[in-house]
């Protein structure tokens, strides 16, 4: 009996020492001189080729490490990337791009005007989900490095929306590809970008890139970039498992502000969190009730408490207050319950039977409030505020996809959701117009929507107006209509933040108006060119 106990104890000691040995072994880091930068990524973003990458922000950003567009943005704003310079014809119909000299694809093939033409031709055949190229009539090769793009009709945001979004494909590879959405061979990743994919593991969602030594825009400052999912970015960053945390919540990032070696950066706000109202509900279709709702919601408190100050209070005109397009003269709708109640009474929404819920034309103002399970706190506050003016809401939370899906299908009464692409050119206001072409899908609710001829006319005119001052005037008028009519209610504009370890790499920034169509992350590839490697 004694010997058995002894042997068991010995076995235990053996196991423990093995484990400890294993663990101590892990401390030995490979001491190669490679400059490896490690960042976090929010889960799997698909096979990172142009047509196969996930249709979310990180999906595009990761793809853009390998593929360049004609123009691009850094923290200052627009710059020419594959284009050396471009010009626009007076009728706004023809764009002439002069390409940068000496650019090659990762496999050594030179990048020429023919590739640009091919890309426009190819996307006409195989629509690209990130940007529509339907307005392009024809792309013509002028010479090896010059290409002309002719449009069907003027499209003012062409440079930001198309030239700044559309990755240039190598003709010699894609000319043979019939269906690019299922093309996941290694060749599908050959572009002109600063990085080349070394490996992608769909199981672990780890992306490893190596530098493109022949990058045309400058020397890449790192040798390797590793992107891996990380469930606790803050601790991982402090522990040195990652060098930069891109997908950190604002509050978490802010808590690292004063930490040694950590740099906290705050992005521009290019997202909107807003209330969708279903106009099939008679009461919600009444302008006065929408205005009452707007007065009844204390947006400042929501920003302070529900999102811990990581946002800017929403404006009624659906344009960001920091934007050059913002019209400061619109109605502000400061929190005012008395006024809200007055509006309700004026329009006849009164609680007649004393159950605490108002009725409007015989119908009880009792709704379901749909929101993402990430926004339960906002949801709780909204329910509370609406209750105060006699609108009863039952909260229903679901995951992001369900919420977006229900909004797109019109299966909601009142919904709260966030979406991006809310910066830069105000073309995103298309989601409020009758003709929603050009708006991202997630921002257009299904079912019965707000429709206003005056707005439609002004907005359509703004898309064609070439004079900036006149266009600004049109957009300002649009905002006035929106603020008065309140087709949607912008609750707040979230602000993104990131933290990185400045002893490893210095020079991350948030891109002006977001990467490409407004992606609010620090994944801009040009950080890797302009930044400096700090580690030894």
């Amino acid at each position, binding site marked *: 009996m004694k010997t058995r106990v002894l042997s068991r104890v010995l076995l235990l000691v053996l196991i423990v020492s093995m484990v400890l040995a294993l663990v101590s072994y892990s401390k030995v880091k490979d001491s190669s001189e490679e400059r490896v930068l490690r960042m976090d990524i929010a889960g799997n973003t698909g096979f990172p080729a142009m047509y196969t990458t996930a249709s979310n*922000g990180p999906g595009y950003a990761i793809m853009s490490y390998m593929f360049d567009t004609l123009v691009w943005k850094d923290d200052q704003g627009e710059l020419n990337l594959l284009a050396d310079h471009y010009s626009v014809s007076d009728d706004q119909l023809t764009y002439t791009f002069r390409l940068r000299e000496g650019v090659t694809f990762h496999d050594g093939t030179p990048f020429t005007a023919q590739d640009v033409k091919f890309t426009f031709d190819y996307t006409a055949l195989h629509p690209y*989900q990130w940007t529509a190229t339907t307005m392009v009539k024809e792309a013509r090769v002028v010479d090896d490095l010059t290409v002309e793009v002719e449009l069907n009709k003027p499209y003012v945001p062409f440079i930001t929306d198309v030239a700044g979004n559309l990755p240039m494909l190598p003709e010699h590879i894609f000319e043979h590809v019939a269906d690019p959405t*299922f093309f996941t061979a290694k060749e599908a990743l050959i572009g002109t970008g600063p990085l080349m994919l070394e490996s992608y593991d769909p199981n*672990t969602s780890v992306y490893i890139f190596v530098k493109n030594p022949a990058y045309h825009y400058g020397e890449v400052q790192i040798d390797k970039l590793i992107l891996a999912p990380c*469930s606790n970015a803050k601790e991982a960053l402090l522990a040195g498992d990652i060098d930069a945390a891109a997908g950190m919540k604002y509050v978490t990032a802010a808590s690292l502000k004063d930490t040694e070696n950590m740099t906290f950066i705050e992005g521009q706000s290019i997202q909107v969190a807003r209330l969708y109202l279903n106009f099939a509900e008679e009461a919600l279709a009444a302008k006065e009730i929408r205005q009452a709702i707007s007065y009844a919601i204390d947006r400042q408190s929501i920003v302070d408490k529900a999102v811990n100050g990581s946002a800017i209070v929403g404006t009624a005109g659906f344009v960001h207050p920091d934007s050059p397009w913002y019209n400061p003269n619109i109605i502000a709708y400061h929190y005012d319950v008395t006024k809200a109640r007055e509006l309700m009474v004026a329009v006849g929404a009164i609680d007649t039977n004393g159950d605490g819920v108002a009725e409007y034309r015989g119908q009880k103002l009792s709704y379901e409030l749909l929101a993402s399970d990430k926004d339960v706190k906002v949801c709780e506050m909204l329910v509370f505020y609406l209750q105060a003016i006699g609108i009863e809401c039952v909260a229903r939370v679901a995951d992001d996809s369900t919420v977006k*899906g229900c909004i797109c299908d019109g*299966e909601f009464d009142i919904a709260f959701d966030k979406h991006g692409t809310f910066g830069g050119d105000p073309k995103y206001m298309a989601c409020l117009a009758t003709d929603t072409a050009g708006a*991202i899908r997630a921002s257009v609710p299904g079912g019965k929507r707000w429709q206003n001829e005056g707005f439609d006319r002004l907005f359509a005119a703004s898309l064609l107006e070439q004079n900036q001052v006149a266009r600004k005037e049109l957009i300002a008028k649009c905002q006035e209509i929106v603020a008065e009519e309140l087709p949607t209610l912008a609750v707040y504009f979230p602000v993104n933040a990131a933290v990185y370890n400045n002893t490893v790499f210095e020079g991350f920034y948030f891109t002006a108006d977001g990467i490409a169509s407004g992606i609010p992350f620090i994944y801009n590839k040009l950080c890797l060119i302009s930044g400096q490697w700090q580690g030894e």
Partner: protein
Amino acid sequence: MARRVAISPALRNITRYFVYLLAIIFISFALPRLIPGNPLSFMAGDYAKDVPSSVLQQFGAYYAPDLPFTQQFILYLRNLGKLDLGYSFYYKAPVAERIFGALKWTLLLSLPGLLISTGLAIWIGVRMGLAANDRGATLLLPLLATQAVPTFLMAALAQVLFGYKLRLFPASGACTPGITASSPGYALDVLKHLLLPLIVLVISEVPSTAILSYNSTLRVRKEQYVSFAKYLGISEDDVRQQFVIKNILPEILGKLSMQTILCVTGSLFVEAVFSYPGLGTLLKQATSYRDYPLMQGILLVSCLYGVCISAIFESILNTHTRTDYRRKPNE
């Protein structure tokens, strides 16, 4: 009963399992279709304008959302007959390939977890049950308390404490990013990443089995043959192994069968916290991106696995009880 004698038990079992199979195929077909909203609405992400038409075609050809329900089901059966689970439009890869890629990691984590936890649980439970004067019951409190701590909480605490603060183990992932199957030290690296999730999984799984074997032991212990074994002077280890464990085994096997079924998804919480690339993580990804073929495939594979496991355990239990022993010599 007499009428049934004509059908052999083997045939009856096969029929039964065939019906189970149909039932789970139907479940895997029906559940994803119960999700509200048009599947196509979900596919466009936050920034995308529209879903590529070829993806839609591919999806429509397999999932056929516009056909009537019965025809969809027939199509599904036909595809399954061809062993075609469809194409994941999020990963742009065959569903089967993605599932087995993830299943590999899940099993790597949960099978050892299951073996260790069951072994440990029986060891603890039987010892508790056999301890003199009910002293074993004192261990009941910590076991129950451990059982009551939600697994996700335990995992998160362990990760912060051992992974990040004490740096004893790698805190997340299945291997160091950058190390591939061909690099030297791969196996060791995988093992290191496995340890912390495994420990959490084992700790979360031990209490229920331990309490079960404790209760069973208490019952068996009251049996006359255990007392008699003592009277005969049979050694304590033999009493434990040959008299107690052998007799609580059927119950443990029943439990084990359930635990093994839970294996495929039971480690979900642990996987989620440690970013471990298993089936649970895949399912979460699939549901959040509404990758219907993938969701359907995961449901089918995990339910199939469940049926197989319970068939295996049932046959083990049957052979076990058959030799046992309940047969009278003249029967």
